[in-house]
């Protein structure tokens, strides 16, 4: 279970580049829930994910994961509980190392790494079986450098790596945005399968309304560093992509209205 309470984050405070990226986000995600985060560019959705992962410390508020307060934990310590897939297929794997070695590191996520062999026989056997289920023919290429694979293959493997040890929370950060449509579909199918198999608590950021509608049991819409809408339960099930688009349109219109109203007031009174 993830419990976020009142988190704020300002980047570059006191400079002209100051960005108030998170403005008081409260969010509780129940065990086994699959939450999709939507939002326009700059709405703070990726920042929210990074705050949970620990890429930076939040200025205010607290983050609790499985009843443990991880607010002050560094990223690598939180990694013991969090599995992660990045937007960039190059981010989640070590390109010059073999597929097997990449998985060996995933198999020791959050554990103390000692002088045991990274590529134990037990791991190799389990790995071959698991990778074979991808039907990408990679099970015979476990010794190949992972950098020689396509983006889709790398994202699929990163997903398996992130869930090799069951994480308390799975973070997917627009993990299909950099892929061609066919690979994106494959990775989405795999994500569904992995999440359902272990009932993983998941937080996924996406740009795709269709993905948001098809996946998960709850949609959160971010706007200007806050949660603007929260659809869940029956409401989420009824939701269509068009409804989400309307929602966005409404946010945009309200914003324009605010701006034009401000301009009008300015003209009248200043």
């Amino acid at each position, binding site marked *: 279970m993830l419990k976020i309470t009142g988190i704020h984050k300002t980047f570059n405070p006191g400079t002209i580049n100051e960005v108030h990226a998170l403005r008081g986000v409260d969010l509780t995600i129940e065990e086994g829930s699959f939450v999709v985060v939507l939002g326009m560019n700059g709405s703070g959705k990726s920042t929210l994910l990074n705050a949970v*992962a620990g890429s930076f410390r939040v200025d205010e508020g607290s983050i609790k994961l499985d009843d443990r307060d991880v607010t002050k934990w*560094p*990223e*690598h*310590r939180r*990694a*013991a509980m*969090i599995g*992660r897939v*990045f937007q960039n297929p*190059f*981010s*989640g*794997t*070590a*390109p*010059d*190392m073999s597929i097997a*070695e*990449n998985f*060996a*590191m*995933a198999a*020791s*996520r*959050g*554990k103390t*790494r*000692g*002088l*045991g*062999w*990274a*590529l134990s026989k037990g791991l190799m056997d389990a790995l071959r079986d698991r990778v074979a289920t991808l039907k990408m023919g990679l099970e015979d290429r476990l010794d190949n*450098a992972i950098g020689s694979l396509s983006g889709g293959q790398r994202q699929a493997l990163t997903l398996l*790596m992130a869930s090799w040890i069951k994480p308390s929370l799975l973070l997917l950060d627009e993990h299909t945005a950099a892929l061609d449509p066919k690979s994106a579909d494959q990775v989405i199918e795999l994500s569904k399968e992995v999440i359902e198999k272990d009932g993983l608590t998941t937080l996924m950021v996406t740009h795709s309304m269709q993905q948001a509608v098809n996946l998960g049991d709850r949609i959160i819409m971010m706007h200007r560093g806050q949660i603007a809408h929260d659809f869940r339960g029956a409401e989420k099930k009824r939701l269509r992509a068009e409804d989400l688009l309307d929602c966005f349109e409404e946010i945009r219109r309200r914003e324009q209205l605010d701006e034009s109203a401000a301009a009008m007031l300015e003209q009248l009174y200043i």
Partner: protein
Amino acid sequence: MTLLLGAFTIGLILSLLAMGVYVSFRIFDVPDITTDGSITLGAAIAAVLLVNGYNPLVATAAAAVGGAVAGSVTGVLHTRFKINALLSGILVMTALYSVNLHVMGRSNIPLMQARTLTSYSEKAGQWLIGANDFNLFGWRVGAGDAAVLVTALLAAIIVGYALYLFFRTNVGTAMRATGNNPQMIRALGANVERNIILGLALSNGLVALSGALLAQYQGFADAQMGIGMVVWGLASVIIGEALVGGSSLGLTIIGTILGSVLFRLLVAIALRWGLNPNDLKLITALFVFAALVLPRVMRQMKGRPRSAA
């Protein structure tokens, strides 16, 4: 023949330095100039202990530990204090110059009288062969010289193999990933900062080990002996990569050892042909420059006709 034997021996001893540079430069992608100071530090620690009658193995091990400490200081400056990696190395190298003079107490310690790994090997060689020299394919070879060469070879093989095994353990694999993709290995729960510190400690430990052996072989430790050694190591690593081609871990380590020996041989031959020893560092630097630039030039040359087609 003695010249050739000497070149082989020094090449093998410096292959430990080359492996150290391989760890920092190739695995962690940090051109770590601490090397120049830590090779002298290794020589200095070993020399002082040897002169005071310590066992050569103890003296050599102490030297490696000293180098590891120097490397971890560089690592701490770089990771904890966020100083640029190159600058951290320069700072520690500069500081080490004074440290080395303090360790030695003067700028040069001769080891001619001390019992060293070299003198032990020589004695063992003469005892095994039962004569001062023997016939090898028609050449007269000193039994002592040959024994020292074998010792150096053993040292290179043992250290190379240990390094290979280490980088295949869980912690070693995570350290390789730290250089390859820090974001990824951080997301998998590794402490990237700690790994970099460990890696630089390992690298400089190897370098200091090389320095300790070098001092025992050439019979002295000198405050100036480290100048330009990191470039020497880079040259060995680059030659090694060209020799073995592949990028697999085992091959590159073997290549680094071969590269160091080959480079030393080339230098010995060049000196024999009348190369001014004063030009040696210049030539080495030019060589590394060429080795770094040539691959890109070659790619551009290859790329041109393709883009025209």
